Structure formats: structure tokens, C-alpha cells
């Protein structure tokens, strides 16, 4: 199954190269064959995985999306674009998502950048690894658990109860837009910090010295050199978080009290409540297309930025 879609690329076949290198006695042609076979075998699990768990479900959803809702809910075969024509019925949900995703990613970025900056450029070497671990370790717990914990922290017997001691009564934190934003920043922070950290860590520090030597203020060095060179990392983190936020469902439900309706929530309701699978499928397909467009744009921007870096460096 995997071999059919596989185009051999001997140059990239590290596994193949390794095995060929360890057995130099083989004649050239057999060695190439072995190399290709090795590559194919190495790629097989991933290809199989993608076909079974990504391509096939996607095809099923595409078929569902041109069907009709059966009278008691579910799917009934048809060939109609009525579901796509009905997309405006979820325009608000799409709009909320289109606002949440970039705003959430931006908030995440504003918190993540100083952290990544400190880690990469300021933190003492012996602390760096520990600090990185501290950022990554909470990620080992499921997002659901970590978000659920916030319900207690922000709920009436959490922070508001503490504030009541100092005279601030009846403050409500949970189920507010602020709580949702907090949850998003908290939940996705490591995804933003790590790519930025990587791009800052690779930064050639001599450039910073050169900038200072040439009379630039720390601020203009930061804006002209550090920030610009870290932009590819910023873009990676930004698009990573944004794509995930396009499908976000859990955090708004738990920390926003289900009052804000995103496209992820619309999907859950369509499949689990009103059981309108064809309409849900049409929305899912649309969401995937939107995500692809966002990815392409992000990719363009970061290619341009990294291109600019090369020019700068020359």
C-alpha cells in the first residue's frame, strides 16, 4: 500500500545511505535498490498511518458533506451542495473563530517572546536546561486537566475568595472573555516559546556586538537585529498556535461557560446534539480549507522573512 504513493528520493534516504555505507561490498545497482527499499520501509508506517487516519476519514467527510441529514439525524446519501449553501448559518461561529485565533496567538506571542528571549540570550547556561524543562513538563499533562484546574483557580472559591479577604467582594473571573484568553495563553504557551527560543538561540551574537559597535542603541539593535532574525521562529509559533486555535473547543467551553461559540463548538453540536452530520462535514471541510490557506500565507511570509535574513547576512 505504502509503496504505491512513494517516490524514491535516494538523496534524502538517510536510512538507506547508512545501510549502504555499512556494506560497501555490494555492487552499485543492488546498493541503490537496497537503499530505495530501505527508504520505502522506513516511510511505510508513516504513510500507512496518514492514509488510514487522515486520507480515508477526509474522503468520508467529503462524501458526507454532499449528503443530506436523515429525518432522525445522521447521514443519508445524496448529491447536493445544500450544506455548503447553508454555511452562512454558522457565520457568527466562523467570525468568532477568525477573531479568536489571531488575537489568541498574538496574546500568546506577547507573553512568550520575553520568556524565549530570556531563555536564549540571558539565562545562565546551567539554568537554561532546567528552565526549558519547567516550561515543557506541564505539557505532559492533558490540556483538559490543566484547563479544568483553572476552573477552580478562577472560580468563586479560588482567587475571588482570596480577594474577598482584602475587601474585594463578589468578583467574577470565571466565564469571562478574559478567562478564555488566559486559558489559551496558558495552554499554548510552550508551542510559542519553543520555536522562538530555537531561532533566538541560533542567533549569531557577534551581530549584536557589531550593531552596538556601530552606535546602535539597545532598542534599535533589538528591533533591527534580534527581532528580525527571530521572525521565522515567531511565524512558526504563530501559525502553529493559530491553526490549533481554529479548531479550539475545550477552553471556551470550560472557561467561557459555553457562552462564546466557536466553529469547534458548532461542530461538536452538529455531530453530537442535532446530529446533522452532512452540515457538520461541510463545515469541517471548510475549516480544513481555511487552515490550509492560513498555513500557506504563514509559509509565504516566513519564506520572505528568512529570505530577507540571507540578504542581510551578506
Amino acid at each position: 500500500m505504502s509503496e504505491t504513493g512513494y517516490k524514491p528520493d535516494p538523496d534524502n534516504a538517510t536510512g538507506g545511505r547508512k545501510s549502504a555505507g555499512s556494506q560497501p561490498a555490494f555492487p552499485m545497482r543492488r546498493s541503490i535498490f537496497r537503499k530505495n527499499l530501505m527508504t520505502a520501509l522506513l516511510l511505510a508506517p508513516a504513510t500507512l498511518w496518514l492514509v488510514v487516519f487522515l486520507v480515508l476519514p477526509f474522503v468520508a467527510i467529503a462524501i458526507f458533506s454532499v449528503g443530506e441529514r436523515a429525518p432522525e439525524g445522521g447521514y443519508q446519501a445524496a448529491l447536493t451542495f445544500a450544506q455548503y449553501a447553508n454555511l452562512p448559518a454558522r457565520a457568527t461561529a466562523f467570525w468568532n473563530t477568525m477573531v479568536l485565533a489571531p488575537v489568541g496567538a498574538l496574546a500568546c506571542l506577547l507573553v512568550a517572546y520575553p520568556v524565549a528571549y530570556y531563555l536564549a540570550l540571558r539565562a545562565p547556561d546551567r539554568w537554561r536546561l532546567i528552565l526549558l524543562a519547567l516550561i515543557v513538563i506541564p505539557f505532559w499533562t492533558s490540556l483538559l486537566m490543566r484547563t479544568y484546574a483553572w476552573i477552580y483557580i478562577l472560580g468563586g472559591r479560588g482567587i475571588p475568595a482570596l480577594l474577598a479577604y482584602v475587601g474585594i467582594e463578589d468578583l467574577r473571573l470565571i466565564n469571562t472573555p478574559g478567562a478564555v484568553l488566559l486559558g489559551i495563553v496558558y495552554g499554548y504557551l510552550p508551542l510559542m516559546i519553543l520555536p522562538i527560543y530555537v531561532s533566538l538561540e541560533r542567533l549569531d551574537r557577534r551581530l549584536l556586538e557589531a550593531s552596538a559597535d556601530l552606535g546602535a542603541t539597545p532598542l534599535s539593535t533589538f528591533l533591527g537585529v534580534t527581532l528580525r532574525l527571530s521572525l521565522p521562529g515567531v511565524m512558526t509559533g504563530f501559525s502553529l498556535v493559530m491553526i490549533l486555535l481554529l479548531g479550539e473547543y475545550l477552553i471556551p467551553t470550560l472557561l467561557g461557560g459555553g457562552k462564546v461559540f466557536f466553529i469547534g463548538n458548532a461542530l461538536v453540536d452538529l455531530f453530537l446534539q442535532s446530529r446533522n452530520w452532512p452540515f457538520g462535514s461541510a463545515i469541517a471541510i471548510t475549516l480544513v480549507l481555511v487552515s490550509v490557506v492560513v498555513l500557506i500565507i504563514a509559509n509565504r511570509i516566513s519564506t520572505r522573512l528568512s529570505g530577507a535574513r540571507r540578504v542581510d547576512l551578506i
Partner: protein
Amino acid sequence: MPKSYRDGLPITPDKFVDQLMRLKRGSISRRDFLGLTGLGVATAVMARELGIMPAPAYAAENLGDRMSIATWPNYHDPQTFENFKAETGVAVEVNVFGSNEEMLAKLQAGGSGWSLFVPTNYTISTYKKLGIIEPLDMAKLPNFDGKSEDVRFTAEGTIDGTIYAVPKNWGTTGFAVNTKKLSKPMSSWKEFWDTAMTEADGRTMVHDYQLTTIGNALKYYGYSFNSLKQDELAKAEELLLKVKPHLFAVSSDYQPSMRSGDAWMTMCWTNDGAQLHRDIPEIAYVLGKEGGEIWTDFYAIPKDAPNKPAGYALLNYLMNPKVAVKEHLANGAPCTDARVNALLPKEVLDNPILYPAADLLKPLEFGAAATLTDPGRAELMARFKSA
């Protein structure tokens, strides 16, 4: 004496771990994260106990060693499943659900793996029409006694003379009020919605459930709880959209927020109302005098049940009045079986939350099958939630 820091904690460490394990095993459905108040069973496979020999009644058939049930949160006495396991050797996995729609969606998709589930009255005709549930083999349920059941609650389990489902509990849908925060006495849905926009601004919860949220908004105008009429639904939508910005949450998981004091008023089912009032006396349970919902939950067996013998065995076990009475005392919802009521202490039968006065019960309506599958109500709910 200074209080331990633990006293002020919103949740004890043990309970949090319980909750965590249950959530890790469960599906992510909204009411799956319910009930810190809960019985702690939820999605947990009961630990294996000493290998006790199967009771003679079950010996005839091989029951296997595990089965799965889909039910509601805070709805069973955990001891029930432990005892069942001790008697039969069958471990029961409990899946908790938030709405009938969700149960139906899982069964429609197939492969739910449940051998017993707990649908509400108005869904049974749809399950039968779709061929999802099987007619019950009453010979396997000797503990069930149709004569001791109150017909008012059991009628919808029988279709064309065939029994598809047998009743578990009945109850009502009213609202719970924290009377310390909202001292004005209330007795109607009109007051509920009006208060939500004034004194209880930002402190009111409605169900994330079209049947009750739309139904009780219809009651504001005195329309039927089950109305599918366009103009009446339009009025209900107008009210819901007006109330939306004043709400604390749209969620069927209201016990934690009511307990923590974040929410002061919420739509509420009998059993939750009884539990809240039991633990926090200032939380009152109110039935709207205009009417609203009365419901019965049933037990039914899916056609594709992987372990039907165990499903029947557990159902028969639960129909034993001595077992059912413990279930009732744990979940707080009234029972349909006269044999069970005979075993209940007087103070339970006198609890007006569980057994409301006849004049309050009279205007209540059972949910109608059509509301379950009506796309119009589903779209209205989506507009309300996305507003």
C-alpha cells in the same frame, strides 16, 4: 482553632485525582466533566474483588467478565456496581452522558459498546423507529413487576404492546436558587427569566440542552414546553437572545458553580436540586407554576450490545426493589416503582423537591419525541449559543 488549609479547598486532592482518572478514561462530552459532587463512579471500571462464585440465578448463562453502561452523572450508587460484580463476576464500566442527543449520536454511529443504557422517555420511540433498541425479553427480568409501576411514568417504554424499556426514575425540570443571594421568592419561569436579566445578572445558568432551555423560554409566554410552532419559537428566541448577555453560563454542568457561589440561579433537574439542597440548605428548588418538564428515565438494551446476557443480568439486578431503593437514596430522583417507595423512609417521601404538590405537577409536560429530531429547534439553539 485555626482551620486546616484543606477546609477551604474547592476540591480535595483525592477527589481531584478521582476526577482526573475518570476524565482520562471518559470521552470529552460536556457533562463528562461534571460533578465534583458526584459519586465518583463515573467512567471507572470497578476494581476486581475477591472471586466470589456467581449466584445461582446467573449461573445458567455465561455473563462474561465485563460490560458497559451509558447513563447520567450522579445517577447511581457506586456500591450497586460493586455488589453486582461480587455476585456475578461482571465488572461494570460506567459512561456518563450529558444529553439524550449525544447518546443517540453514539448509538447511531454504531459500536458504542454498551450493553445497557438510560434513555429518557421521549427518545424511546425514535430508538425503536431506527431499530437501535431491542424488545425486552421479560422472561429474563423476573424482578420487574409491571403492576407495581405507576402507568403515568411507564407508558412510553411500551410501543404497540411490546416493552422496549423499563423505568428507572422520574423527575422534573425546575430551577435552583441561592436564596442568600436572591431573597425575593420566586415561583414561575417568568420570574426566572426576568430575574436573570436583573438581580441575577451574570449569575444565572441555563442548560446546554435545547429541550429544556427552549422549552422553559416558551413557558415565559405560556406556550407548550414542546412547541414546534414557528411564531412561538420566534418569541422564545427573542427572549433567549435578550437574556444571553446576562447569563453566567450555558452549561448542563451547574452543580459546581452553584456550590462555589459563582452562580446564584440555574435551570435544574430534580436529583441535582435535591443534592444541592441537601448539602447547602439555602439553595431552593422551584418548579415554574406555568409548567415545564416532567420526565422518566428508562433502561433499554441496544441491539448491538456486545454482552446482552450481562446487560439483562444487570437490569434485572437493578429492578430488585432492595437495590433500587439504594439507587434512589443516592441519586435523589423519585422512583416509579411502588415496591421501592414502600421501602423509603418517610422524610424522603415528604420531601417536596422529590414529590411536588399535585397542583405543581399538573401543568408539567413530558418531552415530545418530535423535539428530539426537529432541525428547527437545533438551529435555534445554535443561534442562541453563537449570539
